[in-house]
Structure formats: structure tokens, C-alpha cells
């Protein structure tokens, strides 16, 4: 199996994220995944487009809606699904679960369940890149729900003041849980905040993964070349509820269906078929199916961690009491 490059690779990643999450939704219904499961379905083009513009050594942070960024950065479907199943072979040995995956090798610095908490952390890795002069960039994804949190403003202030190589990507899907943005943000354009922090911004509707790559890519290049932070606002939509336990009664069917008709994944597939052929894309799809099935089987077969993992992972080395 040769790894596709270019646009085919982007499509394949989007499809992988979509299919992994659809299988996870099924596994959740079967009780194999517990607690909370926040799906990224509908938003895949953002993580995949951004990833395509990042270097492997760049740092990424995101929220609890983290499966897409993790897979886009190259975490294996096996490690992700096993983590969601709470298995010892998972990305975090089953300690974290869906909302909290890490991948040090790929500099995926975690999914964060406390809204707003990770924005200053991302500012810190950007600081470290500049301090070390390694040319690294940090990308930090968050929902528009973070904007009223103090950390959003603290992070933007510091990133601007210190001219840090960071791209803040607001994935504005219009809702924070059941609350539409109009009811909780006095100004609906998140990028309006860029003015007060004196940083460049960009705001666009997410329809095409290649456009995401270009536009977030421009911000990444500015960060790398000039050490200037950018606030990017991606207007997007989550097709599923906030999490699996959300019946989503606050949105009309028509609204959801209208957004599904603009699914960036469907568009990417159609464009790829036009560039290659239906058969070639179907072959990619088949590969993805095999990868997803393998990940689920791997997670199913893996053992759960035992309680003796808890204390050794809290501190490094022996901890006397």
C-alpha cells in the first residue's frame, strides 16, 4: 500500500477521521466506549488542511473534540481507538480516554477538557520555539465557546506582546453545547478580537480542504518567517450533537441537513474523483475501511490497564510517603 500524496492524501485523512468516528459512535452505543464522546464529524477539513501546512516538528493543541487533530497529525487509528476503548495499548494507556489524547512523537500536545485551558499552554510552546530559535510553529485549535474565557484573552495578549510563532485556529461551529453563539457572544466575529490584540486575522467558511491548507498555511508561514501570531476563524458545523449524550434539540433538522449538503468531505471526494477516477478513490476508501476495521479489532483484543498503573504515572520515579 503506497501512501498517497497531495490532494489524495488529504482526502484519505478526512475519510479516515470520518470513518473512525462513525465506528466509535457505534462502539459507544455498544458500551465499548464510556463517558463522553465528542465527534468531529463535519469539521475534518480543518484539522487535515491545517496539518498539511504544518511541519512534522510543529506543535499542536486542541480541545476534547480531539480525534480529528490526532489522526491528522499522524496518530495511528489503532492508538486512538484503543485509547477510546480504555485499553492499555491506547495513546495514553487508557488513562485519558476520548477527550485527552496525547502523542509526543508527533508533537500532538493533547486534547483539553477544560475549555480555554490550553490556549496559554500553546502560547508557551510557541515561546519555547522562539527562545530556542528552532523555527517551530504552534497551532492551537479551540471552539468559539472559549472566547469568553479569560485564557483566550490572556493567550492572545501574550502571544502578541512577545511576537510568538503561533496560529490560533477558532473552529466556529456556531454552538457551544446547546447554546448558539448569538446568545452568548456580544460580537459574533471572533476575529474582531484580533484588532484589540494587534495581530493579523483571517476568517472564512470551511468548504474546501485545500483552501484551509492555503489559508491556515499563510498564517503558519507568517509565524515561521516573521514570528507573528495570527487568529484564524474557520466557520464550520458539527453534524452530530455536542457529545453522544446530546439529542441536539436546539437545532432544526433543516439547519443540520443544509449544512450536511455542504459537507467538505463529500466535496473533496467529488473533486478527487474528477482528478483521478471513481475506481481510484474507491480503492482509497477500501484502504480506509481496512484500517478502521483493523483499529477496532486491535482495540477489542487489547487488555485493559490495571490499577497499578495509576500511582507510577502520577510522578516520575519513586515517591516516598
Amino acid at each position, binding site marked *: 500500500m503506497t501512501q498517497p500524496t497531495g490532494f489524495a492524501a488529504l482526502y484519505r485523512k478526512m475519510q479516515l477521521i470520518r470513518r473512525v468516528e462513525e465506528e466509535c459512535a457505534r462502539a459507544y452505543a455498544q458500551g465499548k466506549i464510556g463517558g463522553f464522546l465528542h465527534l468531529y464529524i463535519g469539521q475534518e477539513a480543518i484539522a487535515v488542511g491545517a496539518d498539511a501546512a504544518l511541519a512534522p516538528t510543529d506543535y499542536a493543541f486542541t480541545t476534547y473534540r480531539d480525534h480529528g487533530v490526532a489522526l491528522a497529525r499522524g496518530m495511528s487509528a489503532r492508538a486512538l481507538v484503543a485509547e477510546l476503548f480504555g485499553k492499555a495499548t491506547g495513546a495514553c494507556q487508557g488513562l485519558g480516554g476520548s477527550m485527552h489524547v496525547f502523542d509526543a512523537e508527533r508533537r500532538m500536545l493533547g486534547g483539553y477538557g477544560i475549555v480555554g485551558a490550553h490556549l496559554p499552554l500553546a502560547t508557551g510552546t510557541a515561546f519555547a520555539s522562539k527562545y530556542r530559535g528552532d523555527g517551530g510553529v504552534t497551532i492551537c485549535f479551540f471552539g468559539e465557546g472559549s472566547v469568553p474565557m479569560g485564557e483566550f484573552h490572556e493567550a492572545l495578549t501574550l502571544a502578541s506582546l512577545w511576537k510568538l510563532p503561533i496560529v490560533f485556529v477558532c473552529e466556529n461551529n456556531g454552538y457551544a453545547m446547546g447554546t448558539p453563539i448569538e446568545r452568548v*457572544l456580544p460580537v459574533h466575529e471572533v476575529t474582531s478580537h484580533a484588532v484589540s490584540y494587534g495581530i493579523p486575522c483571517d476568517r472564512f467558511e470551511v468548504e474546501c480542504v485545500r483552501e484551509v491548507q492555503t489559508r491556515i498555511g499563510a498564517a503558519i508561514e507568517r509565524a515561521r518567517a516573521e514570528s507573528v501570531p495570527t487568529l484564524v476563524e474557520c466557520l464550520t458545523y458539527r453534524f452530530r450533537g455536542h457529545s453522544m449524550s446530546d439529542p441536539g434539540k436546539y437545532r432544526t433538522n433543516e439547519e443540520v441537513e443544509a449544512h450536511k449538503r455542504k459537507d467538505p468531505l463529500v466535496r473533496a471526494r467529488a473533486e478527487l474523483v474528477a482528478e483521478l477516477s471513481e475506481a481510484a478513490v474507491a480503492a482509497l476508501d477500501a484502504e480506509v475501511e481496512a484500517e478502521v476495521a483493523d483499529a477496532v479489532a486491535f482495540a477489542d483484543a487489547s487488555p485493559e490497564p490495571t490499577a497499578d498503573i495509576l500511582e507510577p504515572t502520577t510522578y516520575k520515579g519513586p515517591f516516598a510517603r
Partner: protein
Amino acid sequence: MPQINMVQAINDALRLAMQRDPRVLVMGEDVGKVGGVFRVTAGLHEEFGEARVIDTPLSEGGIIGTAIGMALYGLVPVPEIQFSDFIFPAYDQIVSELAKMRWRSGGEYSAKMVIRTPVGGGIRGGLYHSQSPEAQFIHVAGLKVVCPSNPYDAKGLLLASIADPDPVLFFEPKRVYRAAKGEVPEGPYTVELGKAAIAREGAHVTVVAWGAMLYEALEAAHQASARGVEAEVIDLRTLWPLDIDTVVASVKKTGRVVVVHEAPRTCGLGGEIVSLITERAFTHLEAPPARVTGFDTPFPYTTELDYLPLAHRILPAIVDAARY
């Protein structure tokens, strides 16, 4: 009397408090139109309107900070923090401002409010949806801390908290939100703050528990009984001010005590309870006081049932105390 669950009982208390007193208002993330993620505030938005049931942005510091200001001006805010794990962005406001208001104004002002928040594990929420931070608030003088275990107490304690002149943190054990059912009278009544309840009488070992772990303690006591050990189980109900008299009276009878809590062991409320007991009943003790608690680790996803101090961990502690 109707059988209802804790969610319904708390909802009922909020409705009654709002009907009786126009100063009472509810605020928080998704508490209004959606009715709360656990549906605790369902129907209040329809009944009282958005001026009194306020959907806030994500902004815990802002929610609690503005609630303090409202309280200074005589309103009685009942803010909800969606999970007690999300209270920390507001910790500064609670610790630095809320808790100190009465003291620093020489008693001229207080910030009377009730912060409601679901607490504890049991829903596989992992590190950010499971913690039990009660001790971190008790350690700050100026706050009262409540944690009911059943619908009757939940309603009566919430109404008492709303009537109380001081700020109250009202922790709602989410593991038993719907599982704990019971008869609850219609109409208002209060359960006095600072009073524990004897949930089960017994002569051999005292077990102190609260919230969701009360049921584990009762189960362990039931199993111990089969081995000839009769445990007295105390439901603390109000964690601060602590009803140490009830606890000490029981320990003087049994000479043995086991304290159970979900929070990590070190500097947990259990340590304080044990200290108070040794100060007041030292010569009555027949066995070292024991704690059955969460571990000194973050709260895990998969191994949640190992982490929680469930009956199978409480039982040996009871039996060991009895046989010491």
C-alpha cells in the same frame, strides 16, 4: 408522597425558592433553554423567564464574580458550574473574594449565594469530569459545603442553603442523580445545615461517608453484618460545618472508625475528620482510624472502578477495624 430522584428534587427546590423569593436567580452554561446538561434546571426558563434563568457564556470566573456582585446588591444568585471540575477558573473569585467578603467588610456585607455543581466519579468521565474537590473549598474559611446523598435531603438542604446567610457550595453527586430515589414532600421544607444523619445503626464500627459513597458504605455494612460486624453508617450531609458531635458520639460507642471519600487521600476531608476524632475521643479508640479513599492520582478513565472506594474496599476496612 411522590417518589422522585435527586435531579427532580433539586429542580423542585429551585422552583420553590424562585417562586417564593424574587431575589433568587439561576445562572450558568446551558441552564436556561436547554435546562442544564443533567436537566436539573429543566422548565425554570419557561416558568421564570430569561431575566431570572440566565444562560451564560463559558466563563466560570465571570459567572461567579458577577454573582458575587449581585449578592452584594442583595440578590440571591444560584449559579451552576456544569461539573465541579470546571470550577477552577472561578476558584480565584471563590477563594479571594467570595469566602472573605463577610470578614473583610467587618460583617457589613456578605455574598450570600449557592453554587450548585455536580461532583464525583461514576460516569467514566475521566480526569476532567469526575473529581471531588470538596476539601479544597473547606480549607478556605468562609464557605459552607454541602453534599446530599438522597432526594429528600437534596431538596431540604438546598432550600436551607438558599436561606443561609453565607455562601454555600452545593455538591451534587452525579453518580446517584437518578439512581437515588425516595419520597419527597411537596412544598417547602428545610434540612438543617451542619447536621449529619445516622443512615444505619450499629455498635461495632463507625463509618463516615457522604454523597454517592454513602451507598457503598451501606452495602459494605450490609456485607459486614453477615460476618457478625455491625457498622454504624453516618451520612455527613453537610461537609462544613461538620457535625463532629454526631461522629464523636458514635465513635465513643464503637471505638472504631472508617472514613470513606472519593477524593484523593492526602489532605482529603477524611484526614480532618480523623484528626477531630483523635482530639476528642482519643481514649475511646480501640483501633487506628482508617480511611478508604480515592488514590493520590488524577482521576482515571478506564480504571475508575478501582479508583473509587467501592464496597469491596470498604468491607475489609470495617472488618479489620472490628478485629483489631
